[in-house]
């Protein structure tokens, strides 16, 4: 019988390590292929791990509560008679212990993920979980064009190739691109924490670490520009109240109206639904919209796919479901990436307006403020109206101010003539 290695799966391109939340099987339990053996917390979500081989869970190498870099052997499934001594000996000593602490500095957690050279991988042993899951991510994220050397350096230094601008022919990522990304992304090593009353160092949660790592990758290399517009939401508000009064229909939020408006506008302004890919601009024909959801310890942007093809009610149902599962950390892998545009809404915090940071490789993000009751002047004189500020942050390498403004104008028109959102 084959010995099956249970390794920390790579659940997203940006994932570097994962934490075993709990083992659902104990050592000695018999396992069928497809059984859920453990739950893993990644930088984005909690994920159940399926077994890809049958046998007995012979050994748990990384106990619950501990973190391990991706690719680390965390358990072994084999028949009772199989000799797994060699495999255990080859596992990094104290795999769990070495990385039990949350990542204080990135390099510390990344270096143990040493087996990048495939020649070192024992051929007879299957490492199915990592391969299978990685396949899913690759399949929907598209092929990353990178040189073999660039891929190797990225694997060794923990650079997410999807966030790297390729400077080779056709946008191919080459060594110098990865090295540049690595040096700009590597945070300075944190000085040893000093115990004292003056301050407290809270280790970064995986999600906060991911944000800390990814945001500078956007703000520094992506030249942002911002366009703000004010939308009269009186009619939109009225329509929403009417819709929500209908029995048996899902509740519609202001944000759902904005998602729908953006999806429609993205179809008429494909230049905004675009991403810089080396020396080409990739224009998407489908609107996959990332919806920023605030969590206690961070922010996550699950993706609502094909918004352009979904009626308002469906957008409302699905976005609520996504947000809820995001808060409960129950998102599926494929919901974590692939957005072509994002929306961040801080309306519930009584925010007049703000601007958001683009989530590369997307080309733009829309920041949505509160719907405020403000004095307005119209033909009849002074009155009270509902107004909402929208600010779009655009990647200037992909689009220009006028393009962003025209898109925003269309979103505004759709929201101000909200029946358009229903047809």
């Amino acid at each position, binding site marked *: 019988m084959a010995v099956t290695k249970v390794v920390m799966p790579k659940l997203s391109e940006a994932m570097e390590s994962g934490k075993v939340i709990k083992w659902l099987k104990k050592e000695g339990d018999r396992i069928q292929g497809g059984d859920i053996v453990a739950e893993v917390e990644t930088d984005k979500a909690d994920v159940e791990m399926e077994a890809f081989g049958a046998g007995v869970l012979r050994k748990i190498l990384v106990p619950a509560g501990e973190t391990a870099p991706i690719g680390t052997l965390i358990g072994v499934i084999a028949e009772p008679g199989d000799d797994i001594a060699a495999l255990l000996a080859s596992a990094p000593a104290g795999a769990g212990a070495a990385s039990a602490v949350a990542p204080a500095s990135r390099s510390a957690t990344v270096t143990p993920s040493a087996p990048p050279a495939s020649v070192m991988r024992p051929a007879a042993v299957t490492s199915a979980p990592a391969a299978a899951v990685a396949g899913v991510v690759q399949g929907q994220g598209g092929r990353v064009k990178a*040189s073999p*050397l660039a891929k190797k*350096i990225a694997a*060794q230094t923990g650079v997410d190739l999807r966030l790297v601008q390729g400077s080779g*022919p056709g946008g191919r990522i080459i060594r110098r691109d990865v090295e540049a990304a690595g040096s700009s992304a590597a945070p300075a090593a944190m000085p040893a924490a000093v115990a004292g009353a003056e301050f407290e160092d809270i280790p970064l949660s995986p999600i906060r670490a991911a944000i800390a790592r990814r945001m500078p990758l956007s703000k520094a290399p992506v030249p942002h520009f911002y366009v703000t517009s004010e939308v009269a939401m009186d009619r939109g508000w009225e329509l929403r109240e009417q819709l929500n009064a209908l029995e048996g229909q899902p509740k519609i939020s202001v944000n759902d109206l904005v998602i729908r408006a953006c999806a429609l506008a993205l179809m008429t302004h494909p230049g905004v639904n675009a991403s810089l890919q080396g020396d080409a601009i990739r224009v998407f024909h489908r609107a996959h919209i990332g919806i920023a959801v605030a969590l206690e310890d961070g922010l996550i942007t699950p993706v609502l796919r094909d918004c352009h093809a979904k009626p308002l009610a469906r957008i409302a149902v699905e976005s609520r479901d996504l947000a809820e599962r995001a808060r409960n950390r129950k998102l599926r892998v494929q919901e974590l990436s692939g957005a072509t545009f994002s929306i961040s809404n801080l309306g519930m915090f009584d925010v007049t307006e703000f601007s958001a940071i683009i989530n590369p490789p997307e080309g733009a993000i829309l920041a949505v403020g509160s719907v405020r009751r403000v004095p307005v002047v119209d033909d009849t004189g002074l009155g009270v109206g509902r107004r909402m500020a929208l600010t779009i942050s655009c990647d200037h390498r992909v689009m220009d101010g006028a393009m962003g403004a025209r898109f925003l104008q269309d979103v505004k028109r759709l929201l101000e003539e909200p029946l358009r959102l229903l047809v």
Partner: protein
Amino acid sequence: MATHKFDVAVVGTGPGGYVAAIRCAQLGLSVATVEDDRPGGVCLNWGCIPTKALLRNAEVVTLLSRAGDFGIRVSGFEANYAEAVQRSRKVADRMAKGVEFLFRKNKITLFPGRGSLKAKNVVEVKGATATETIEARAIIMATGSEPKSLPGVAIDEKTVISSNGAVRNERAPKSIAIIGAGAVGVEFADVYAAYGVQVTLVEALPRIVPVEDEEVSKELARTFTRRGVSLKTGVKVASVKPGGPGVVIELEGEKLEAEQVLMAVGRSAKVAGLGLESLGVQVERGFVKVSPHMETTVKGLYAIGDMAGAPLLAHKAMAEGVVAAEAIAGKSPRPVDYGNVPSCTYCRPQIASIGLTEARARENGREVTVGKFPFTANGKAVALGETEGFIKVIADKATGELRGVHIVGPEATEIIHEFALGRTLEATLEEIIHTIHAHPTLSEAALEATLAALGQAIHI
């Protein structure tokens, strides 16, 4: 005096100049070229090509003299050196005609004569009978280089010769001292030795082919010594004077006599008398300073090839010619990757290398892994009866990046390109070993050397 107007004028039609001219023409520009010799420059007429013809002769002579190894008894043969030189002239003529044909095909106008800059967009051509003026939107200077000598030693091309004389002289001397054991020095040493000339190779640095990997130098020194070439390394030449059979060369504490001395101590760029100074073109350490797109410090004026800096190699000049042409045509060409220029020497065994030597690769403290495979263990090499030499692959230990490759052996100059391509594509050791190499070929040694770097060589 007529003035002609063109988009581009190219001064010098060596490998850099003629390639630049053709690429400009391909891109729809009207092109004038200026040449005071035959098209093709030193490379086609006096360098690369005729010497390759001479080296082929040397190879045939050597094969005939060891015909017995193949069970072929040759009862006396005469290797006529004059005919070898005549053959090499024919080869050079044919290649030069080829360039003239390419010029006609691409509608490139050739102005015979000496070109110099009158303004940043004006070239004056002094021909045999008339002086003409070319006005061009952009000018590419590609005037090349000429052999250097040592201070106080004048090249007369009679007893003190340069490669220019060596490639023309139809009479081989009885003995020759070659000063400088770089590519030119060892190639002529090979030719002369095959034709029975008593050769002494003098090198100031501690080893012959000093820019190559140390093990390569050692291997070549071994076979040269076996073939009766006398090597004097780590010695400086104090003086070269007439005397004895022709010249007397005073080394540090030693005197050397020979009929001729060949100065092969390097080449210097031809940057004088071209009008560069008056235009304010910046020249640094004897070479014209250029941007990554080969533009000099004067806008619209480009310089390529030997005059634009090291390495002084024809293929580097050609690559620069393409970059300059495309830049002029408004494209944004990829600059030449100077770290990835193969270097080839055509003595027997041949030498080819790319990237860093082992010593250089270890300098910065990065860990490297080295794989070496000898041609004695390669089936094709044994069948050919050419088993001298080896392939050495130097890779970064952590990533498998190909840092340098050094080949000494049969057809080394052909084998190097899989590594050049590999490096361009940023392949690592793994991509090379997963590339199936046909059997039996000399290139299998490239696969084996790569495997050896991973501790997996099969055939040794």
